[in-house]
């Protein structure tokens, strides 16, 4: 019999983020009033973050299978086969709200959490990426958030000892009260040594490992699912502090006991800590679990059962060990100076039972805790399609050269060096392509195999047309992997949206997922893991409803290179090489950075993605890299063609003489339009004819753009654009801004 130490009032139910209907469902399920600890457990298991109640029906439509997928969504991270008995384990996760409240620790613990997801599966992390969205540079909080988040990501990853090799940074006023921090980790394991969460065997000891439990982040999981009110800064929820040192020890200890064959099941304690991890271990294994909280190592005195079950203290794990190996495992953990305690056991009962100070405080059906979580088919309205903007109707205010220099120095296009120089991107000795290129390339052990990775999304496209925007995010990730010569294999997604209870936000989520599903299917680029972050909106005083972020479905893509020596980088390699453009150009200015940052208009339909053309174009480019014909490759994305060519010139110091634009497209639309599915590449002059013939045979548009050489980009009728000057434009803004300079 569970005694109620506290009467469960409607207010208490509401404070736990549960609706009256959800509470009724709980009463039906257990046939009595829950104890306060049980209520806390339901609130943790049934909140958006853990149950995916708003997104689940739509996530099911994502393609998750391919012959190389070993583990799709449903475990701590996705697993794909990369050949030679090796698997790549990866996932992305958001730590948005915590990073707004306390940017350094919020971002740091976000990195810590995703690293744990990866090494929990038996993989040694080999790289991290991150996708960051901040508010308007002019907003008074933005600098502080950028400084803190970047330092936090670096602070954790650098100390833990994983190279942070890539990511994204953007600024937009719609992130003013809700910056986004999406962290991705990639690890390596042997295909036959992957570890899962499902417990097996009755009467098996459940072991608690890692750091001690404190009152960190209680209500954190619920916080991550509740819309921010104007008083968010006053509430000051408990912030978790990251301890990368302990996590590094935890990594080494876990990998050591896994290698010694001690582990049956393992689950990290992430959001809603002990509750989620214990319930998942039992439910996935078809077993009950009994926990004795008196055995849990605590950092603070007089912790209640409620607090222990909901604490989000970091750097902790739960494991089921082979009983005969328990002592060996304990010795390893002690050697690394980590806590080790048997806190419970598996049972045949299918009940989740928790005892504290001799009293049973929880007795719940374990399977139903997860399975019976509400699933909502929330009403949604589709985002109306915006009108297509004709290039002829866009007035070109300034000459091309000046436009290029202006664009290169904008917050969204300028160099991110200031950010990634704060991340150790060379540790491990395997970073073949460092940040700054299309995709990072990290050698696998001694090579020659390597992994390519990237994180992409263009939120302004998603806002204008969620379906096309969702497609574009996937296509761009695929394109970035292709541009270094890799075979794209699979993605992880991190879906960041506003309040799903608003039909127009739900419409964005549904539209983006449809677009992602369509692109992933067409490109055979399945989704193997991911995360959803909703309620990213802020209600400002006097406003009826919240102001949501731009829909931001970040796509993390991973691909493989059989030999890292046969890959491409974006820098021009030599003078006198031909520059070609693969893919069709129409001069698409709707939602382009040109339109926004030069013309001051943020409107129109985003560029559509033709997935068949995408695939054809990419396959040709990858083949040209594989045959060592293409000497430099860069995909054409944000900012358009001239920006892409400038990036190739800046990376090398070599310029180019460019041909005039075609007469049937306005010059500004040709050079700055954001048509999709395109790559700029260079070839030795004697290779051009054969490539032209190949493209023609495959029905792929190919256009001669010019010839490399000199120290400037030159265009007929325009002043010279010195590579060194362009670099100056590109490199200056962010460091100057962070030093207090103009926004």
């Amino acid at each position, binding site marked *: 019999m569970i005694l109620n130490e506290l009467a469960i009032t409607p207010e208490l139910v509401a404070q736990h983020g549960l609706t009256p209907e959800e509470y009724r469902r709980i009463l039906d399920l257990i046939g009595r009033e829950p104890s306060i600890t049980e209520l806390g457990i339901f609130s943790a298991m049934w909140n958006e973050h853990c149950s995916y109640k708003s997104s689940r029906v739509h996530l099911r439509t994502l393609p998750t299978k391919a012959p190389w997928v070993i583990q799709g969504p449903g475990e701590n991270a996705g697993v794909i086969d990369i050949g030679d008995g090796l698997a790549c384990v990866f996932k992305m996760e958001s730590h948005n709200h915590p990073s707004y*409240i*306390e940017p350094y*620790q919020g971002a740091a613990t976000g990195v810590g959490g995703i690293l744990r997801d990866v090494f929990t599966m038996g993989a040694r992390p080999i790289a991290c990426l991150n996708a960051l969205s901040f508010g308007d540079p002019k907003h008074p909080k933005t600098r502080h958030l950028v400084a803190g988040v970047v330092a936090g990501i670096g602070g954790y990853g650098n100390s833990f000892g994983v190279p942070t090799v890539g990511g994204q940074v953007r600024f937009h006023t719609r992130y003013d009260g809700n910056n986004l921090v999406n962290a991705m980790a990639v690890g390596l394991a042997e295909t036959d040594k992957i570890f899962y969460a499902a417990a097996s065997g009755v009467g098996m000891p459940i072991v608690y490992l890692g*750091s001690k439990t*404190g*009152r*960190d982040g209680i209500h954190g999981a619920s916080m991550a699912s509740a819309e921010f009110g104007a008083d968010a800064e006053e509430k*000051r929820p*408990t*912030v*978790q*502090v*990251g*301890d990368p*040192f*302990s996590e590094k020890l935890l990594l080494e200890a876990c990998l050591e006991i896994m290698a010694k064959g001690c582990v049956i099941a393992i689950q990290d304690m992430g959001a809603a800590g002990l509750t989620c991890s214990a319930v998942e271990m039992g439910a996935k294994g078809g077993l009950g679990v009994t926990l004795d909280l008196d055995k849990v190592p605590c*950092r*603070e005195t007089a912790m209640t059962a409620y607090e222990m079950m909901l604490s989000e*203290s*970091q750097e902790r794990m739960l494991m089921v060990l082979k009983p005969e190996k328990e002592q060996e495992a304990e010795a390893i953990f002690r050697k690394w*100076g980590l806590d080790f305690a048997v806190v419970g056991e598996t049972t045949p009962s299918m009940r989740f039972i928790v005892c504290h100070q001799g009293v049973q405080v929880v007795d719940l059906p374990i399977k139903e805790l997860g399975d019976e979580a509400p699933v909502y088919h929330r009403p949604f309205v589709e985002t109306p399609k915006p009108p297509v903007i004709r290039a002829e109707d866009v007035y070109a205010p300034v000459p091309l050269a000046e436009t290029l220099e202006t664009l290169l120095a904008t917050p969204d296009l300028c160099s991110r060096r200031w950010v990634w120089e704060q991340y150790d991107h060379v540790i491990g000795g395997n970073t073949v392509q460092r940040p700054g290129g299309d995709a990072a390339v990290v050698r696998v052990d001694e090579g020659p195999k390597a992994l390519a990775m990237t994180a992409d999304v263009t939120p302004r496209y998603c806002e204008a047309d969620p379906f096309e925007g969702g497609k574009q995010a996937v296509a761009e990730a695929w394109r970035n992997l292709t541009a270094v010569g890799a075979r794209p294999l699979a993605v992880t997604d991190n879906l960041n949206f506003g309040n799903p209870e608003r039909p127009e936000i739900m419409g964005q989520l549904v539209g983006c997922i449809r677009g992602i599903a369509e692109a992933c299917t067409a490109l055979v680029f399945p989704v193997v893991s991911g995360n959803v972050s909703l309620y990213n909106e802020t209600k400002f005083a006097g406003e009826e409803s919240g102001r949501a972020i731009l829909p931001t479905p970040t796509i993390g893509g991973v691909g493989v290179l059989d030999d890292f020596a046969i890959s491409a980088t974006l820098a021009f390699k030599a003078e006198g090489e031909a520059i070609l453009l693969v893919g069709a150009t129409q001069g698409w200015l709707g939602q382009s950075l040109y339109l926004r940052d030069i013309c001051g208009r943020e409107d129109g339909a985003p560029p559509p993605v033709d997935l068949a053309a995408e695939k054809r174009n990419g396959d040709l480019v990858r083949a040209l890299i594989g045959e060592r014909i293409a000497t430099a490759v860069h995909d054409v994305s944000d900012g358009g063609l001239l920006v892409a060519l400038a990036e190739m010139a800046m990376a090398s110091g070599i310029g180019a003489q460019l041909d005039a634009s075609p007469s049937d497209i306005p010059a500004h639309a040709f050079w700055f339009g954001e048509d999709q599915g395109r790559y700029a590449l260079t070839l030795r002059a004697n290779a051009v004819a054969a490539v032209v013939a190949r493209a023609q045979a495959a029905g792929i548009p190919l256009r001669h753009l010019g010839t490399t050489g000199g120290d400037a980009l030159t265009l007929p009728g325009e002043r010279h654009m010195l590579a060194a000057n362009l670099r100056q434009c590109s490199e200056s803004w962010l460091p100057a801004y962070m030093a207090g300079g103009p926004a």
Partner: protein
Amino acid sequence: MKARITVTLRAGILDPQGRAIEGALRSLGIAGVASVRQGKVFDIELEGTDRGAAEAALKDAADKLLANTVIENYRVEVVG
């Protein structure tokens, strides 16, 4: 005027620094250490002689920059 602002972690907030130091002191054979928490001090020299104004400015400095009041407490002393 001289002042000192002392910033310490709030109770209950994890202090990885303190824990690592605790362990190190024990293994160095320093007896009887039950716990260590690490904090910061800022020794500040101020122009002017108005104590009240100085205290207000220091409080402002602590709130805006020196302490992260989500996880830290601070104390301001004007020492002379």
